[in-house]
């Protein structure tokens, strides 16, 4: 299972050396590698494990000074029950889900349209447009929070989902990831459609998009993860508890629950669960997507 990247529309035969290494005998050197890798893996899983065993004990035992992996009086799901009774986590999960889905969808639509124009259509001002959009990649989101918040107040969008969604759909780097992919699609595939008098939009929808599914998925994954986990902007744009996204909501939990360690960990784990599950099911696609879009910058 190689970590391929998607730079070409047609699956090219990998020139990678990944295949040659599998199925070798266990030499002493490889045993050392295995042990070090396993130690690192255990170290990297400890925070998850510790959060889990904390979440499954009673609050009194979570706050006990004798620290043990297995609680003396056994595990309990009380903390999860309390968190669900409270109702905030399911609400915030829903808020995160639909705002992230909307951000991903709008980003894909507007970026793919622009990428197609930049890849295939010769129009006046294209060079200038391209330069401006490339240059905009360097604008760091924190620079915009002050004027953008002021703008949201003026547009009466504060504490609405629009404030969360609209400013997050501009991903100039992803436009160029898509353009680069479109550039590699052979033009002959479109020529037949052009001969038939198909419009640009029809060519885009019926020829380009179907061939671009892998890169569209990669961009979607990248944008979705970013939107799902974004903290700073939703934190600024929303105050109303009913509209908070999961990351922002969790921040309020910390102060609300105070020293309720088991409930804190139960909430954190529930917040972590959706993307971890998604990763378990779509590991290949997510890894490929991140490896492809990652170097394009964030």
């Amino acid at each position, binding site marked *: 299972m190689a970590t391929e990247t998607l730079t070409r529309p047609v699956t090219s035969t990998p*020139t990678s050396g990944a295949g*040659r290494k599998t199925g070798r005998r266990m030499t002493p050197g490889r045993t050392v590698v295995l042990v070090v890798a396993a130690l690192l893996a255990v170290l990297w899983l400890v925070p998850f494990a510790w959060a889990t065993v904390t979440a499954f004990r009673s609050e009194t035992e979570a706050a006990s000074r004798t620290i043990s992996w297995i609680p003396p009086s056994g595990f309990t799901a009380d903390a999860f029950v309390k968190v669900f009774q409270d109702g905030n986590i399911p609400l915030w999960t829903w808020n995160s889900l639909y705002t992230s889905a909307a951000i991903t969808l709008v980003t894909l639509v507007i970026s793919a349209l622009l990428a197609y*124009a930049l890849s295939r259509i010769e129009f006046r001002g294209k060079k200038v447009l391209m330069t401006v959009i490339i240059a905009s990649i360097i604008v760091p989101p924190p620079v915009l929070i002050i004027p953008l918040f002021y703008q949201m107040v003026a547009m009466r969008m504060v504490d609405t989902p629009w404030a969360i969604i609209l400013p997050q759909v501009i991903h100039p780097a992803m436009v160029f990831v898509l353009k680069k992919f479109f550039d590699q699609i052979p033009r002959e595939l479109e020529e037949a459609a052009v001969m038939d008098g198909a419009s640009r939009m029809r060519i885009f929808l019926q020829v380009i998009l179907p061939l671009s599914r892998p890169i569209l998925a990669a961009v979607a994954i990248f944008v979705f993860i970013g939107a799902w986990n974004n903290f700073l902007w939703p934190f600024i744009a929303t105050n109303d508890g009913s509209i908070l996204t999961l990351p922002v909501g969790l921040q309020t939990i910390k102060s609300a629950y105070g020293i309720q360690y088991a409930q804190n960990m139960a909430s954190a784990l529930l917040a972590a669960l959706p993307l971890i599950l998604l990763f378990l099911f779509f590991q290949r696609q997510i890894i490929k997507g991140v490896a492809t879009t990652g170097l394009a910058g964030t």
Partner: protein
Amino acid sequence: MSSVATSRNSEGQAGSLPGLSRPKLSNSAGSRSARSRSQAARDNRNGWAFAAPFLAFFLVFLVWPLLYGLYMSMTGKSLTGANDSVIGFANYAEALADADMWHSLGNTLYFTVISTVPLVIVALVMAALVNVGLPAQWLWRLSYFAPYLLASTVVSLFFTWMYNPQLGLINDSLAKLGLPKVAWLNDPGVAMWAVVIATLWWTVGFNFLLYLAAMQNIPAQHYEAASLDGAGAWRQFFSITLPQLAPTTVMIVLLQILASLKIFDQVYQMTAGGPGGATRPVVQYIFETGFTGYRLGYSAAISYIFFGLIVVVSVIQFLITRRRSA
């Protein structure tokens, strides 16, 4: 959605112009140039129509706030609406003389330096280990990369709990090893390192994946030739893998610097910038000046000083990558 419909309409109009939809290839030279002229006009329309939806968002939610922020930075604007008048560069002058601004900027740079080094080296080590071809590939990827899928708040909750001085797992483990306890988030000399450790755990998987993908693109022949020459695994890593990865390393380092400069979430959530401002990064100072201190104009000025720093790093990145590709 509506944006698609808009472009499709204009496309439909262009396509329905008489005589254009089915060009005859055997036309005379004169009508061919007429055709190419109208083709050019159509391309102009189509190009901008396809760009329009993105441009609309781009102008309203990026270009406009960027310019408006610049204007704000030259005013005394505040959330209380007190003073909207233009005061020129007074905010910038004040910021450059503001010890708190410099302190927060210093914290951001300090974090960037001490986080970038482990985030690149540990990622390289992880990728090198996995690339040897261990069994159960999915397991390594899952363990190293999974934390990257967490929200910053989840990471902060995990680590605040583990860093707890009395009840935390880390101090308990130290005690069992006979080591002294550490006031992880409450000691000004340690707090930033505590943030770095949490950040390393959280985001190293991203760099790990980039390294792994790059390693797997190194042609196998390189290694085969080296094996024939009798080079061992260690030797191969230093004389083939590392040099082949040089461009990737440059990109990862630069992307990591740009990412680290934007540090805010973990610090704000774990230490709130404390103790005594020892970890407060510049983005938090921007946030606090604007939303706690209500001084939007001044806050915008600090934003632009921060932006200047990012631009400098980005230009260096651009120059390096251009020289490499040239």
